[in-house]
C-alpha cells in the first residue's frame, strides 16, 4: 500500500493553553455515539468552545477569528492524555489540523495520530513559549513542522529543533505511517508465532 510520505506540514498555528489536555476534552464522550468517524470535526473541543448553558461561543482560542483556519496545534505537556479514543485525533484531523507541536504527548494519542499521518513533535517549554508569542503577535505566521529534519520553522524567523521517536519519524517520511500492509505481509511469521504460543 503506497502512502504519501509526510516530510513536512505547513500552516498557520493556534496555541491551546493548559497542561494535561485529555481526550475527553478534545472530543467529549457523547459525540462518540457513532459507527463512523465522519462528522467528528465540528465537535473538536466542543465543551470548551461553547458555553453549556447559553450555547454561546467562549473565548477559547479556536473561537478567535485571528486563528481561523489554523492547521497546526501548539500545546503544553501531556497533550492527549486519558482515553485511547482515536476519535480525538480523528476530530482534530477533520477539524483541519495537520500537525501538533507540544511539550509532551500521551503515548496512545501519539500513536493514533501517527497512524493518521498527523505528525506530533515535541518541543522544549521555552520553544513552545517563543512559538506561542510569535503566533499571537502575528497570527498570519506560517509554521512548518519539518518532520524529515526534526525542526520547526516560522515565516517570522524562528527555527528550533524538535523530537519524535525514530520509528514514528521513519514511518512518516517513508510513507509507512499506516502499518497494515507490512503487518499482513509477514503472514508466515504470524502463523508460526501463533503455533508457538500455547494459549492461541
Amino acid at each position, binding site marked *: 500500500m503506497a502512502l504519501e510520505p509526510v516530510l513536512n506540514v505547513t500552516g498557520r498555528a493556534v496555541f491551546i493553553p*493548559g*497542561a*494535561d489536555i*485529555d481526550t*475527553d*476534552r478534545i472530543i*467529549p*464522550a*457523547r459525540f*462518540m*455515539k*457513532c*459507527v*463512523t*468517524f465522519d462528522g467528528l470535526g465540528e465537535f473538536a473541543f466542543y*465543551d*470548551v468552545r461553547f458555553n*453549556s*448553558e447559553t450555547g454561546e461561543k467562549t473565548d477559547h482560542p479556536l473561537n478567535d477569528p485571528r486563528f481561523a483556519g489554523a492547521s497546526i496545534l501548539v500545546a*503544553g*505537556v*501531556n497533550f492527549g*492524555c*486519558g*482515553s*485511547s*479514543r*482515536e*476519535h480525538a*485525533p480523528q476530530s482534530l484531523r477533520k477539524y483541519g489540523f495537520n500537525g501538533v507541536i507540544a511539550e*509532551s*504527548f*500521551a*503515548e*496512545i494519542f501519539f*500513536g*493514533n495520530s501517527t*497512524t493518521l499521518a498527523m505528525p506530533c513533535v515535541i518541543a522544549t517549554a521555552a520553544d513552545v513559549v517563543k512559538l506561542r508569542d510569535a503566533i499571537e503577535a502575528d497570527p498570519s505566521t506560517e509554521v512548518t513542522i519539518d518532520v524529515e529534519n526534526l525542526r520547526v520553522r516560522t515565516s517570522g524567523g524562528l527555527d528550533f529543533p524538535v523530537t519524535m*521517536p*525514530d*520509528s*514514528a519519524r*521513519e*514511518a512518516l517520511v517513508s510513507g*509507512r505511517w*499506516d*502499518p*497494515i500492509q*507490512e*503487518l*499482513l505481509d*509477514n503472514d508466515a*511469521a*504470524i502463523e508460526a*508465532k*501463533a503455533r508457538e*504460543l*500455547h*494459549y*492461541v
Partner: protein
Amino acid sequence: MGKSLFQKVWDAHTVGTLADGRTQLFIGTHLIHEVTSPQAFGMLRDLGLKVKFPQRTFATVDHIVPTIDQDAPQDPLAAEMMQALRKNADDFGVTYFDLASGKQGIVHVVGPEQGITQPGTTIACGDSHTATHGAFGAIAFGIGTTQVRDVLASQTLALEALKVRRIEVNGDLRPGVYAKDVILHIIRLLGAKGGIGYGYEYAGDVIDRMSMEERMTVCNMSIEGGARCGYVNPDAKTVAYLKGRPYVDMTDFDATTARWLSFASDPDAHYDDIVRINAADIEPTVTWGISPDHGISISENIPDPAKAATPLEKASIEEALAYMKLDAGTPIKGVKIDVAFIGSCTNGRISDFREVAKYIQGHKVAPGVKAIVVPGSQIVAIQCEQEGLPKIFTDAGFEWRGAGCSMCLAMNPDKLIGDQLCASSSNRNFKGRQGSPTGRTVLMSPVMVAAAAINGCISDARELFHLEKPAAVA
C-alpha cells in the same frame, strides 16, 4: 542479568522487526466493545479483509448500555451501536458476550471472570483501561481504532517497547486505606505524565498481599499515571483465581501453572527505574481538581495556588479550582456532594460491593443526594444478589442498577446535570467526564463514596464507619 515479566512477554510475542524499527508484536487476546470497534470493522470491509484469528477476539457491550431497561436503549444512536456490534460479531465470527448471554459487563471485568485474561499473554483493547488485565501478569494496553483493525486483520501490532519502572509498596496499609488509595497515592507522587514511556510493575509486600481484585484496581489506573500498561507478577493467588474459569484449559493444569509462573520477573531483572513507597504514608485519598494526579489525603486542605512552586503549577491549580468551584487552602472534607457513584472497571467488582455493604447497614443516603450502584458485570450482579447485597444498598437509599460503565464516562443515560459534584469510585476526574460539560468529579475508594453519600459531603470513612482494623488487605 535476569528479565522482567515485561521483557519475557515481549520477547515471547515478537514476530519480527518492521522497516521503521518498531516491533511487530503478536496480540494473543483481543477484547472489543461497541464504541471503538465499529469503525475498525468498517475498515476491514473497505479493505476486503477478514479477522485473522476470530477465536482470539472477544466482544461485549458496556459503554452505552443503559443501567435501567438494558435491552432497549431509548437512544437511537446507542441502539445503532449495539446492532453494529451484533452484526460485526456475526459477520466475522467473533465471540460476543451480549446482554442475553448472562456474561455481559465492563470488558475489563468480563475478561478476568471468564478466565480469558491469563499470565504471560498480550492483551489489547480499544480502551485505555486495558491495563487492568496486567493484574494477572499479562502485558495489556489500550489501542486506537486503526490498531483495532490491525489486530483484527493480522493479530499483531506495530509497537515500540516500553521501559519498566518497578513500584514497590512495602509495609502495612493503615485501617480504611484501600487499593484505590494506593494507586491514587502513586499517581499523586509520580504525576499524570510520570509514566510516559514506561510500563509499571507493581510489587512489594502490600501488592503481594492484595487480592486479585485489588490488584486489578491498582493496574486499572496505570494510564492515569501516564503508563500504558501496569502489571503484577503472577503468583499462587493468580493461579487460584483462574483455576476452573470457563476459558482456562484444565487438561494439564500443572503445566499451565508452571508456564504462567515462569513469566514472573527474575529476582535480578533489570529495571529502568525503581520507586519505593511506604504503605504507612498512604491515607484515604481523594482528588480535588481535574487531573487524576490532583490528589490529597482526606485530612489535607485543597492546594493554594499562591504556594505553587512554578508559574505552570500555579496556573494549573487556578484552572482546576475555578472549574471545581473549590476554595484554595480549605479542607476537602465537608465539601457538599450531589451524586455518589459506585462502580466502573476500577471498582465495580464483587469485593467492592461486599466491602461497602459491611458498613452501610443502619445508615441512610443523605437527603438530596442521588446515589447509584452499578455492578461491573451481569455475573457480579448475580453474585451480589445471591449474597443479598442489593437490598442492603437499597435499604440505605442507594439505587441498584444493571451492569455497565455507566456514570464513569456517561455515554448512557446516567449523567451529571449542570455543575453537580459527584463522589465517584471511577478513574477520571477530567472536565466534563461524567456527562455534563460543567459536572465535577471527586475520585475516591468505594467505601469513601459511601461515606460521602451518607454524610452528604466528602467525608473520612474511618470516622463514620469506625474503621479500626485493617480492612481489605488483611
